[in-house]
């Protein structure tokens, strides 16, 4: 017994040592490579010089002043040595360090009488003479955070997010009279709609990560967001249904969450583009978003067509699906985090795809003829087509 119990004990100690050994060896090898790194490079050639390009993240315009937020996207230090506005050297101050370490940011403050609505370009030159140029198609004053602005973005979010979904939900009384075939068609329509939103969000996420510095971007960031939200939504669905396929109010809630996460990204895009002077917010665009989004309400209403739901529950669904637009507009309008932007859109994509799966399972089970039926296929295609056609209004 003594010997018997000692052996697993020693085995455990050994196991622990062996678990640490690779880490220790790795540390040792890292040490050797770091100290002898340049002679290693010399064996194969020489390193190219660093790109020395800044990442100009954001330009803010206020009366008589321009603020340029720059980041060092590379491993080597990068020094701000000269600043041009429209190909003219200008006086400036740096709010933050002048020599930027890896991924560090500073704000260049330039006193400048810029011309409203005119194109304007900026050049930031490193100590090695490399100029990074950023062109702004039209200079417009950057909105300052204010009660009025907050209210304005909230109102815009309400108009393009909450209102059309609420209107879409008003199809519910009509839906109650629809037959099983029609309901299945509408559910397939919702799946098509969500697929469209998912692909749209995924594209946006990839675009945003592509514009990030290599150290921060990468398709992995998007995959991380998609996986997080897809699996998170799967867990949520499992919790709500106890493992069964979602239906009724639960399915409506999942659809609302999926649409809501997408609308967070949509609000973010609207807010950020407007703040950067890249978007003309007009009645036409807002109406376009309303028409684009009204079918989202239909998607949420369909699963509860044959279920008893309170008005309060419907209001809750509309808020879950629509209100994130407001939040997104605030975030986009007043902050700038391109990493968060890419992550948000990836999360929206993952959620949308997960809800497509949930809706698919529902249609497979409840629709006459299942997923292969003509009306399910037609509904799915119609969902995509509708989003595509109404999407033209906001392009």
């Amino acid at each position: 017994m003594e010997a018997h119990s000692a052996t697993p004990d020693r085995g455990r100690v050994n196991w622990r040592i062996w678990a640490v050994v690779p880490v220790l060896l790795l540390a040792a090898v890292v040490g050797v490579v770091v100290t002898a790194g340049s002679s290693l490079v010399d064996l194969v050639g020489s390193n190219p010089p660093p790109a020395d390009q800044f990442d100009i993240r954001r330009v803010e315009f206020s009366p008589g002043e321009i603020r340029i937020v720059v980041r060092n996207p590379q491993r080597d230090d990068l020094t701000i040595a000269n600043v041009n506005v429209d190909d003219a050297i200008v006086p400036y101050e740096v709010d933050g360090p002048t020599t930027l370490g890896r991924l560090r940011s500073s704000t260049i403050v330039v006193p400048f009488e810029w011309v409203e609505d005119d194109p304007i370009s900026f050049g930031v030159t490193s100590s090695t003479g490399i100029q990074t140029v950023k062109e702004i198609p039209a200079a417009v004053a950057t909105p300052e955070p204010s009660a009025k602005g907050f209210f304005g973005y909230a109102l815009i979010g309400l108009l393009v997010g909450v209102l059309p979904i609420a209107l879409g939900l008003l199809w519910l009384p009509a839906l109650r009279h629809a037959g099983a075939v029609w309901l299945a068609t509408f559910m397939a329509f919702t799946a098509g709609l969500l697929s469209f939103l998912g692909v749209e969000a995924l594209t946006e996420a990839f675009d945003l990560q592509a514009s990030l510095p290599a150290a921060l971007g990468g398709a992995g960031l998007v995959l991380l967001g998609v996986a997080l939200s897809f699996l998170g939504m799967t867990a949520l669905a499992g919790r709500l249904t106890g493992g069964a396929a979602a239906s009724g109010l639960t399915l409506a809630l999942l659809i609302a969450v999926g649409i809501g996460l997408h609308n967070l990204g949509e609000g973010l895009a609207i807010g950020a583009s407007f703040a950067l002077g890249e978007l003309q917010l007009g009645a036409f665009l807002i109406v376009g978003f309303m028409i684009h989004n009204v079918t989202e309400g239909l998607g949420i209403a369909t699963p509860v067509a044959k279920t008893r739901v309170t008005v309060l529950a419907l209001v809750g669904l509309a808020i879950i699906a629509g209100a994130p637009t407001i939040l997104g507009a605030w975030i986009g309008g007043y902050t700038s985090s391109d990493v968060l932007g890419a992550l948000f859109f990836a999360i929206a994509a993952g959620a949308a795809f997960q809800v497509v799966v949930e809706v698919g399972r529902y249609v497979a089970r409840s629709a006459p003829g299942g997923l292969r039926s003509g009306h399910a296929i037609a509904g799915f295609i119609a969902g995509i087509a509708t989003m595509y056609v109404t999407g033209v209004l906001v392009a």
Partner: protein
Amino acid sequence: MAKGRLTRGRLLAAAAPLAAVPFVGKVALAGDAAAGGHDHSGHSPERMPTSHLKGTMGHAAMVGDEAPAVGGPTDLDALLYPPPALPYQPGRVREYTLTATDADLEVAPGVFFPGWVYNGTAPGPVIRATEGDLLRVHFVNGGSHPHTIHFHGIHPTNMDGVFQIVDTGGLFTYEFEARPAGMQLYHCHSTPLKKHIHKGLYGAFIIDPKEPRPPAKELVMVMNGFDTDGDGENNFYTVNGRSFYYARYPIRIKRSERVRIYLANLTEFDLVNSFHLHADFFRYQPTGTGDHWEYTDTVMQCQGQRGVIEIEFAASGLHMFHAHQSEFTELGWMGFFEVVD
């Protein structure tokens, strides 16, 4: 797009023995415009407005300490003030030694350009001879590429600096009679020509007439540009190698005194450069030859063109001068004469 760019290590190791290139780390434009009195005979900023950056926009009005220029008030004196003209004397030999090297040039505060230079600066030294002198220029190539010196003027073709390529470590002596009188210039003629000129291998070459010009305060201005990021467009424009230098250190002139400026254009990439004087007119003699003088306040030169300007300033005060290409002006080619009674 061969960007022989410098690393931080090279940055620190380079330059010191080659050129008087002070190491200035950073431009702090707005905050540090304290009223500093630089004391130097040629430049006197004591009457300069000291701090109006907060109030004005752009560099047209920037003068004195606010102008973002590299170095101290006397750094470019050897390029601005030519050696004196010598009276004609038959059979005289004038000897110069020019050494080509690679050098990191600080062309604007904190901005370093990996240049190729004669005797440490771009433009290179002013070569001066009197018509009829035998000119002997010893060329040492201490740079990392083959170079030559091609002089403008009249000389044997085997002294033309086109076929006599001097490899790294090599020597060559150019020997010819200095003629004709005028404002000439010299530059490297190795290929690729565009790169060898734009990197900084050029300078002024004055040949004085046998019959001397009237006495005057003489200045040399070589207009140039620096494409620091290798995209085929200049990022900085200067006279004598540092952007906004004469805005920071205005050139002091006595009113009514005759001023003679030997002006040349060695700007690469751009079709023309120009010189425009504010608040007065000058006489301009193209190439510094012949009897034709133009009376104007603006002259234009293509690359390789040059001429002689003469003026007696009528009034005291700050007279701006700059390229009349606004872009060049705002990228560093701007300065002031401070005319005093």
